[in-house]
């Protein structure tokens, strides 16, 4: 069912939090140019993550007993928005904070919670998520990596690919087969936490079109995991992963990926006196679409805060949002190219080229367009 999205408002008390955050981020990122900021949630800086942890802003929604701040969804929205809107280098802790922490809180044993959650809150445990495999992309249920039960726990064999930050993380939460065969699809899948320093784990970074290495290939060769590597219930991996993805799909990540470019362009328009009608139309259109998407994302946050599960609506906002993120570099490039006498700065040229080239990934990560449109269609009762 695709529910209506009602306009939602951030609680007043979030304003103070936003001001604090904004001042801190401004100070902590003052050395970064637009080219660095344009990495958005792919920008890795463990030092920055530690600084956020010191402010108490990692594990924002986790309970205090595990080192969290016990804040709600609206605070989390504001935190994400301020960090991503500024292009702060959040990648080191992003997945632990957004997905792994809440997953462990929800499905983990008390011992697992006590072991991992404080480390996440202190910025000492960075996580990656092992989902895709060389032959399993959108068809996630066809994965072949297997954890075989043995007397010491689980013996892990197989490989993962396109794993964001695997080479810079301490742990991976991997979706693996613990029983049955690939043909059993969703049945027999489980999630395990893999300590990436264990013998038998090989991580090989993959260089992307921007010259960055933010994702990796990971090989498991007879990696011995302890009994308590299993997170949640054996065989419930598919359901757990989907709950996690609903979370991943709903946030400001799907609006602000091209924000560093927008800010850079606006700054340059003001500095260079680019004020033509074409510039006004380009900027106004981008800002209008950003504003509408932001209210849609906030409406979903409000549903989460009410305890609803807006997974179909989140898919809708993600698909629509990544469309704008990908249109932004094209709109800006087209506008700039209309004026032969303009002399854009090196910073703007570099930033535009980067976003232009990497933006196809925006609608791949966290579920492709095709997967999301399938989810929406199911929500509408078409399948």
């Amino acid at each position, binding site marked *: 069912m695709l529910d209506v999205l009602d306009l939602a408002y951030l609680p007043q008390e979030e304003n103070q939090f936003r001001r604090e955050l904004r001042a801190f981020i401004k100070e902590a990122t003052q050395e970064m140019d637009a080219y660095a900021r344009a990495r958005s949630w792919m920008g890795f800086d463990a030092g920055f993550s530690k600084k956020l942890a010191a402010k108490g802003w990692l594990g924002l929604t986790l309970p205090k007993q595990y080192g969290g701040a016990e804040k709600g969804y609206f605070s989390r929205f504001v935190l994400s928005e301020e960090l991503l809107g500024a292009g702060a280098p959040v990648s080191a802790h992003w997945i632990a904070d957004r997905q792994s922490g809440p997953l462990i809180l929800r499905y983990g044993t008390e011992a697992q919670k006590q072991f991992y959650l404080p480390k996440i809150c202190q910025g000492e445990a960075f996580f990656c998520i092992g989902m895709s495999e060389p032959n399993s992309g959108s068809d996630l249920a066809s994965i072949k990596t297997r954890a075989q039960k043995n007397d010491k726990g689980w013996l892990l064999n197989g490989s993962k690919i396109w794993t964001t930050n695997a080479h810079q993380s301490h742990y991976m939460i991997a979706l693996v087969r613990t029983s049955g065969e690939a043909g059993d699809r969703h049945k027999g899948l489980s999630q395990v936490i893999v300590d990436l320093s264990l013998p038998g784990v090989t991580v090989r970074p993959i260089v992307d079109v921007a010259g960055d290495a933010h994702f990796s290939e990971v090989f498991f060769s007879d990696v011995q995991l302890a009994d308590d590597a299993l997170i949640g219930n054996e065989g419930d991996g598919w359901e757990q992963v989907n709950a996690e993805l609903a979370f991943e799909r709903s946030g400001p990540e799907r609006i602000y990926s091209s924000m560093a470019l927008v800010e850079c362009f606006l700054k340059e328009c003001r500095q260079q006196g680019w004020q033509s009608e074409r*510039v*006004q*139309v380009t*900027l106004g259109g981008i800002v209008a679409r950003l*504003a509408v998407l932001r209210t849609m994302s906030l409406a979903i946050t409000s549903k989460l805060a009410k305890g609803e599960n807006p997974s179909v609506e989140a898919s*809708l906002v993600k698909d629509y949002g990544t469309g704008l993120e990908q249109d932004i570099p094209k709109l800006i490039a087209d506008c700039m190219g209309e004026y032969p006498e303009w002399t854009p700065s090196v910073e703007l040229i570099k930033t535009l080229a980067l976003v232009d080239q990497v933006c196809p990934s925006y609608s791949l990560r966290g579920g492709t367009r095709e997967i999301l449109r*399938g989810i929406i269609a199911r929500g509408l*009762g078409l399948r």
Partner: protein
Amino acid sequence: MDKLFDEAVARLFADMSEKSDHSLDLSCADYEAAWSEIAASGFLDVMLPEEKGGAGLSLKEAGNLFKLEGYFNLPVPFASTLLARRWLDSNGLTVPDESIVMATMGVQVSEGQGQIVINKLPFGHRAGHFLVLARQSCYLLSQEKAVVNEIYHTGLFASVSWNLEDAIRLDVSAQAVESLRNLAALAALVSSVGAMEKIFEMTLEYANQRQQFGRPLSKFQAIQHQISVLAEQVWAARMAAQIACNSNGYLPDPNLLAIAKYQVSFVSDQVADIAHAVHGAIGITEEYALHFYTRRVREFKSEAGTQSYWARELGRYVLKQEGESVLSMLTGELCPG
């Protein structure tokens, strides 16, 4: 309170829509009958202050009512009349009983020929009165004095002329002139979103019902994905309507209005295109009602300013806020509070 209004108005309009078979094709007598029915219901005054016999509804409360005009393809300018009545009253002017259209685009004033001509005027041959914006002034024109030059196909718009001497120049502030421009855009965008909701429902229903290759269209992935995209656009437009109506008074915030009108105009053609693609040839026929709604959506995207017009307004504002980042605007004045 407002929910009750919504339901009562929706019932009345559903009846009217059924009677006219979704069309705007009414005789003069039918138009007057339809108008008296709406007027007798008392709904026209819901935005007037309580001391004037109204219900004092704000935009936030009345927003859904404006959508109904488009959703039922009403043959009368309902949204425009409600807003115009409030605008007239707030500016100390007499509120007429007949329907009122606000027109802000393409108004030609020719001193030499002593004429005002508007070649594309919504409900131009039907509405009782017209609040017209030209040369930074507001004029009140009436149907009685109008010369209808042409009624465009299906009767949503007409070309109309007046003798200049029959135009009543209204003595209002520059601010009121600006408000009129914004209210015209608001009426256009919100009623259009109502038509989009209808289009979305019709498309979903048709895809589920129409069989090809031995199964409903809705079972084909290529169709599913088109409808998913349609849903995204309609949902964004619905949100835009809420953004525009996020006001406790009767005037929209100018920046929020610009955002909303941009968004609705931006998706208009895409919404109509997908609906027609899914419907196939039947959607192009006169007998099937889809075209009434897609025509509204396509035509109203330009009424009171296209996406580029409103993007320019917003872009000009954004450029002027020296030192302010896009993020601070999005989370500040451009955020419906």
